[in-house]
């Protein structure tokens, strides 16, 4: 994508406008389509005059062809949200797309290549919820997530699967999103949600990333652990199994007595929501449904903690992302001001962001 950005964008726009290479060749004044093909594949560099012709004749801005921090017709998002209107969602998608595009561009330039291979999960709509949950359990086991799978999930997704995980200040109502690019997967999570919600959303979006080819998620889905959409239900089952494997739950004993308190304390220990834990125990037949219904949503809200007892927000973005930005500035791949523009922050905020992730800010203030 890097050096052939102009050719790639030209091809995307040509296809969007439903023009053949022959038609585009005539627009440019080339004698044949082979020249257009060579530009689109990067075999031939476009000249400044030809770039200006493209701007003029195709009615696109210079930035469209040259801004590496732009997802031009690429990137499919699936948003997990509640009550967010389309205009606000589209606006945030454009912003988030720039972060992801920047990572895609800069990471290889600073020695962090995008993964060559992509992992998939063989769960289809024909599978049962129990099979999806079992797949989640197996993921936790095979990737050695340990006794508190939630604590290591993001790290494993980044390191083992090459998924870009970003904790973001999302527009109100957005819980998270999965994003699929041709060569990169990304997950965005609202960093200000309680940890249990963040972890469940992360595991849920992981399911979408792993099953995108066979079960592409909808562009917008309602954020609910009790969704009626089958793909969403399978994602929730997978997330439950991953975050609360049966083997991990074994050490917490039975649930007959003091149920509400035990749900809340166990949920805190596992960094999940008490509500999710309740439904997981019911699905495993370790908690009778009728008994479980006695634990009201109110009693389990915020894992039993009083209102105003908030957990701190997760650090903004992620260490791998911030490292790439910092190294890209130091390697001369992006200016500090451009990086600050991208993240909509001051240079001082950018330095603080680096410090928050233990990354050296390699630029002068």
């Amino acid at each position, binding site marked *: 994508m890097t050096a052939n*950005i102009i050719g790639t964008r030209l091809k995307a726009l040509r296809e969007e406008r439903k023009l053949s290479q022959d038609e585009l060749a005539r627009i440019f004044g080339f004698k044949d389509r082979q020249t257009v093909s060579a530009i689109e594949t990067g075999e031939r560099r476009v000249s400044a005059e030809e770039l200006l012709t493209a701007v003029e004749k195709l009615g696109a801005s210079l930035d469209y062809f040259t801004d590496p921090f732009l997802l031009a017709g690429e990137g499919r998002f699936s948003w997990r949200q509640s009550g967010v209107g389309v205009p606000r969602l589209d606006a945030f998608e454009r912003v988030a797309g720039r972060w992801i595009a920047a990572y895609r561009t800069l990471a290889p330039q600073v020695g962090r290549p995008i993964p060559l291979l992509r992992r998939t999960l063989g769960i289809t709509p024909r599978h049962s919820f129990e099979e999806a949950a079992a797949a989640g359990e197996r993921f936790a086991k095979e990737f050695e997530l340990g006794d508190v799978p939630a604590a290591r999930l993001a790290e494993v997704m980044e390191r083992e699967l090459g998924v870009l995980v970003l904790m973001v200040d999302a527009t109100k109502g957005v819980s998270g999103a999965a994003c699929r690019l041709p060569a990169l997967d990304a997950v965005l999570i609202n960093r200000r949600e309680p940890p249990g919600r963040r972890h469940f959303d992360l595991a849920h979006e992981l399911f979408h990333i792993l099953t995108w080819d066979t079960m592409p998620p909808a562009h917008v889905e309602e954020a609910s652990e009790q969704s009626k959409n089958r793909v969403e239900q399978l994602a929730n089952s997978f997330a439950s199994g991953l975050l609360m494997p049966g083997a991990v739950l074994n050490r917490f004993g039975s649930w007959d007595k003091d149920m509400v308190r035990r749900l809340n304390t166990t949920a805190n220990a596992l960094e999940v929501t008490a509500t999710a834990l309740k439904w997981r125990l019911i699905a495993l037949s370790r908690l009778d449904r009728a008994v479980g219904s006695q634990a009201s949503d109110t009693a389990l809200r915020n894992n039993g903690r009083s209102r105003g007892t908030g957990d701190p927000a997760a650090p903004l973005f992620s260490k791998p992302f911030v490292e790439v930005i910092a190294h890209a500035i130091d390697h001369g791949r992006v200016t500090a001001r451009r990086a600050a523009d991208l993240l909509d922050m001051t240079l001082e905020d950018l330095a603080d962001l680096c410090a928050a992730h233990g990354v050296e800010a390699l630029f002068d203030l």
Partner: protein
Amino acid sequence: MDTNVILECWRIGAWPALSSGYRVETVEKCVTETQTGYQRRRAEQHVDQAVLQASLAAVHRPETKELAMVAVKAPDIALDLGERALWAHALTRNDNWILCGPDKASFDSLSLDSFSS
């Protein structure tokens, strides 16, 4: 001269001496970026635009074709708007000039060698 350098000179009170001792030029985008709301700094400087422009020997506005030239020569370097405009102007001049800016991205990629053809 790039935006960050103008702002830093202004902050330490060196701008009058610099601009009166040298023929200092910049581009419109950099002037815009010195204004409140565009500086990307926590403690913003109040830079009087009229005073700034009066102290500059010239403020240039590169044409689209000059910006296109920078774009095709260094397509994978993410410059900010001010620096991109600055280089687009500088690299089409025929006289001697010195460009003053803080970023490696600005200098590492746009060496004169890359513009020889």
